[in-house]
């Protein structure tokens, strides 16, 4: 990017072509073609700074954290806790002790269901979720309901994939103890009105968990502004490693919640008669954590925010509009999920052609998309389809990727129509 253009715009405008160079895997060919990676909702690729952070940790700093008195342990502990600070600032939590490292978003939800849920949700109480949840934001609540006798309520969705707000208003009431909602739907792309959800739930005294597995890498999230009680995200979609996730919880909740797992690190003292638990967030981090993962995630977040996250979001929004327009030109193609508030996801079906066949054929053209129910079987049932094909965007995608998809879909029609 030229100095001239950089000086007229602040922050400098986002250049996806430049960003692509930071991701080594995007250079490779797949099946003899340029790779068009459009399966970002499943996992994103990793920038070199993340790979370097992992290598550096294992080659220079590897040690266990928190109780070591030796040099390496101190450095590793500092790096791990610095990553927590990075994560705290990223989601704008008030304090680092509100930021718990988990394995992934799923574990964060299970933690809240089993710890907060079993303490506060009992027989006859209600948990409200939406009809567009990922299985990971359904099953933990079903388990809780089985264990406690609580009742699961589901807010239906409209034909365009939007939450039916009137139904939400109708379903949330005095029995509601918790509302769990996805911020950005992984199979429809719908962005839920999470601020309004939190506000209404709080009016009824219910806590709110937001599933930000998809949202957190597409646009800035501010948990204080949202005022949600819990927010979960996952590292491997945030351009970081697998096996590391984030759970934000308001300190007041986390303080009074019982531990989720017992073990080392989550205690302050142990005797056979009585164990005293450690303070938060460590109370919820039993056992040796994924130290390298946390450090890698910290590097990924710094990279993402360093590019100007607002600019990233803008680029993706423009690309989504371009892709939506391009796909709608294809005869017989129907987008599933056309809510007014949408991001990054293009789920679609093609007349007379099963999504599985679409996925296989576009793969031969070097285009990676996902086909299936995307861990949202109730969404598929809602739309009366067995599966969809899904292209999902990330910051390094360009119009070239979309054009490659369109060419590949024409090939699909040639082979199967």
């Amino acid at each position, binding site marked *: 990017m030229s100095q001239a253009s950089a000086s007229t715009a602040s922050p400098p405008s986002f250049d996806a072509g430049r960003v692509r160079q930071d991701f080594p895997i995007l250079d490779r060919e797949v099946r003899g073609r340029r790779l068009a990676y459009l399966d970002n909702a499943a996992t994103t690729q990793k920038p070199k700074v993340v790979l370097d952070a992992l290598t550096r940790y294992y080659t220079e700093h590897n040690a266990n954290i928190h109780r070591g008195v030796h040099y390496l342990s101190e450095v590793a502990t500092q790096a791990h806790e610095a990553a927590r600070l990075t994560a705290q600032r990223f989601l704008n939590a008030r304090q680092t002790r509100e930021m718990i490292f988990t394995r992934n978003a799923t574990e964060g939800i299970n933690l809240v269901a089993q710890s907060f849920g079993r303490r506060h949700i009992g027989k006859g109480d209600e948990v409200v979720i939406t009809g567009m949840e990922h299985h990971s934001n359904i099953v933990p609540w079903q388990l809780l309901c089985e264990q406690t006798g609580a009742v699961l309520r589901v807010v239906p969705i409209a034909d365009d994939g939007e939450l039916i707000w009137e139904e939400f208003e109708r379903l949330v009431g005095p029995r509601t103890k918790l509302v769990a909602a996805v911020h950005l739907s992984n199979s429809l792309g719908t962005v839920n009105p999470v601020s309004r959800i939190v506000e209404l739930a709080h009016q009824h005294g219910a806590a709110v968990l937001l599933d930000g597995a998809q949202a957190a890498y597409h646009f800035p999230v501010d948990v204080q502004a949202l005022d949600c009680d819990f927010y979960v995200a996952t590292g491997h979609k945030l351009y970081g490693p697998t096996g590391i996730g984030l759970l934000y919880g308001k300190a007041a909740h986390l303080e009074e919640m019982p531990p989720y797992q017992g073990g080392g690190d989550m205690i302050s003292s142990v005797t056979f008669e009585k164990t005293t638990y450690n303070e938060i967030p460590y109370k919820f981090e039993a056992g040796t954590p994924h130290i390298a993962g946390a450090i890698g995630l910290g590097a990924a977040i710094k990279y993402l925010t360093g590019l100007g996250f607002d600019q990233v979001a803008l680029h993706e929004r423009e690309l989504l509009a371009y892709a939506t327009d391009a796909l709608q030109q294809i005869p017989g193609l129907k987008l599933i999920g056309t809510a007014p508030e949408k991001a990054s996801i293009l789920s679609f079906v093609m007349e007379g052609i*099963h999504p599985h066949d679409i996925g296989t054929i576009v793969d031969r053209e070097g285009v990676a998309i996902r086909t299936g129910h995307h861990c949202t079987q109730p969404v598929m049932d809602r739309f009366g389809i067995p599966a969809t094909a899904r292209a999902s965007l990330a910051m390094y995608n360009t119009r070239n990727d979309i054009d490659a998809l369109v060419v590949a879909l024409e090939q699909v029609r040639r082979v199967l129509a």
Partner: protein
Amino acid sequence: MFDLRDLYQEVILDHNKRPRNFGQLKEPERSAEGYNPLCGDKLIVHLGLKGDVICEIAFTGSGCAISKASASLMTESVKGKTLAEVRTLSGRFQEMVTADAETEPDTDALGKLSVFAGVRAYPARVKCAVLAWHTLRAAIAADHKVATTE
């Protein structure tokens, strides 16, 4: 380099578009449902037996081109065969779609079914090809179970 046409052969495309024996039997003696939760493919195989011989067979359901064509070709190839012959054929089919790329399919034994040899290059699609056969075996096995309890 595998060509897409190795997987989507003309015979397969034809059976996908115009599946044979697609529909219900008037009075199926037995049937079984097969489901592939990964892709949502659902098949129901309906059987009519005369002694030990499959005299009637039909299928319903929905699925991808590979699973639908596989079910269609399967119904054609097992009609008139004894259950023992079907078991052998089913085993051969399974072997063919999971064999390594160098192994030549036994075209004498498999006949038209050898068009599915191309599936070997697509591990994610093997389940689509074998769904119909699993469902057929379930239909046969379920009946035997009922028979032994009587």
